[in-house]
């Protein structure tokens, strides 16, 4: 591959940040990896901007900022007609049917194009179909950004720990829940109070359901179980409990025994569960604030634990672009 033609579908916080970093580090990527690319298309919820010769990313970002969309008038090409090598799929997660991400990804793979996605829905609902379609069409499907933000979990398992058999994974994969529980424990504040605070700080969404009921953690655990443990699980198979019932008093009782409560996702080949658990305060998994963490149980390397920021635009972009560089290396 001489030059990588990139299409971005979904141009919210993550999509824009990926474009920004690609533009900013264009020369670094060229010098370090020989990576040359053109951004040939971008699509947001209102329309698309396409150019086979490559779009001007700076202009694209300022148009998006000013007008709320990148839709350009008089586009002669349709998004399905543009030629590209790599789709970066950043549309929002939909846990009902995975759309529009699912169709975006399947269409790209069927045409033999590689795909990187930050969208959990399609992977958690239709893993088998996606993996098989990728394999059949000799296309690559990478998704590090869907799990644990900037923390390399999937790539750690697939590359660095390639000689190992990984039997189970346990961790904290939702920064919002971790923030809420950490604050409740530290300040003896009730759930509702801390939730409101988290919403004011932008750590929790105005509708926090997806995070606090453990849905987000469950989706991530399904993706991990399928891709790393070889499970054939779907989101519907997960036993999920969230953190809404946790009381200040329960955290205080745990504290008396030098423990705290964390929302943990746990997966082995047979079972995936998401529930609050008591964790000793000096346990490796007892990280605070919005941090995420995961421990992989391996046969040769023992337990490997990785931690870091689990969300945020630049952290997610970091994972997307690491996947992009990996694909570039594999294709050249």
């Amino acid at each position, binding site marked *: 591959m001489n030059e990588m033609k990139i299409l971005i579908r979904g141009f919210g916080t993550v999509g824009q940040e990926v474009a920004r970093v690609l533009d900013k580090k264009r020369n670094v990527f060229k010098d370090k990896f020989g990576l040359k690319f053109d951004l040939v298309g971008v699509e947001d919820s209102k329309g698309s901007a396409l150019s086979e010769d490559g779009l001007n990313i700076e202009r694209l970002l300022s148009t998006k900022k000013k007008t709320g969309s990148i839709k350009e008038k008089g586009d002669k090409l349709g998004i399905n007609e543009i030629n590209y090598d790599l789709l970066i799929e950043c549309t929002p997660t939909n846990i009902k049917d995975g759309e529009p991400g699912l169709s975006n990804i399947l269409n790209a793979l069927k045409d033999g194009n590689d795909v990187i996605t930050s969208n959990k829905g399609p992977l958690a609902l239709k893993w088998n179909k996606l993996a098989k379609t990728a394999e059949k069409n000799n296309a690559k499907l990478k998704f590090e950004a869907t799990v644990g933000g900037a923390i390399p979990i999937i790539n750690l398992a697939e590359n660095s720990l390639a000689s190992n058999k990984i039997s189970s994974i346990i961790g904290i994969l939702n920064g919002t829940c971790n923030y809420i529980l950490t604050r409740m424990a530290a300040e003896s504040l009730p759930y509702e109070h801390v939730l409101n605070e988290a919403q004011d700080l932008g750590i929790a969404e105005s509708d926090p359901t997806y995070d606090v009921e453990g849905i987000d953690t469950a989706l991530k655990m399904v993706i991990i179980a399928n891709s790393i443990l070889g499970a054939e699980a779907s989101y519907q198979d997960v036993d999920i409990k969230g953190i809404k*019932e946790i009381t200040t008093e*329960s955290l205080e*009782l745990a504290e008396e025994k030098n423990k705290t409560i964390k929302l943990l996702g746990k997966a082995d080949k047979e079972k995936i569960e998401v529930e609050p658990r*008591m964790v000793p305060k000096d346990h490796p998994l007892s990280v605070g604030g919005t941090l995420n963490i995961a421990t992989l149980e391996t046969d040769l390397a023992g337990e490997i634990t990785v931690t870091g920021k689990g969300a945020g635009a630049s952290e997610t972009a970091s994972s997307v672009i690491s996947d992009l560089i990996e694909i570039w290396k594999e294709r050249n």
Partner: protein
Amino acid sequence: MNKITRFNLELKDIPGQLVEVLEPFSKYGANIESVVHHREKKTPRGKVPVEIKVRVEEDRLKKITKSLKEKEVEIVEIDEKTEITSFNIILIGHVLHTGIKDTINRIDQTGYAEVVDLSLSMPEIKEKSSAMLRLELEAPEKKNKVLDILNEISEEKDLEVIKEISV
């Protein structure tokens, strides 16, 4: 080589306790790797947590555990992963109104598990209360049976059960 086993114990805060506790380890030939006396982490009931790491053959573990129990030493945990013969559990909900005595009885009546400690915290009369229970098992393999009973009780009484990470 024998593997390292970690004992988390709670001792009474009176002179001579530590020596008393170390006696079974020495008697059964365990090689002590470390002893950490957590005086700064005294429990609400005034006991002192002590962590002892030893290298010892697996078959001696049971003898040491038995001897510690005879000395009425509180064994909180033995090496999270191997022998779980006691564990904590938190219940959240209307723990009291739904019959805490019944909850405890149903565990004790099994004959192989027993509630040995209970702390209760109630904020206001209509609010949910929280309880920390410590359970002791006759044998580690009874763990899942006890958890099943707890799940049954919690469903019936609409209680949230929070287990330890190692259980």
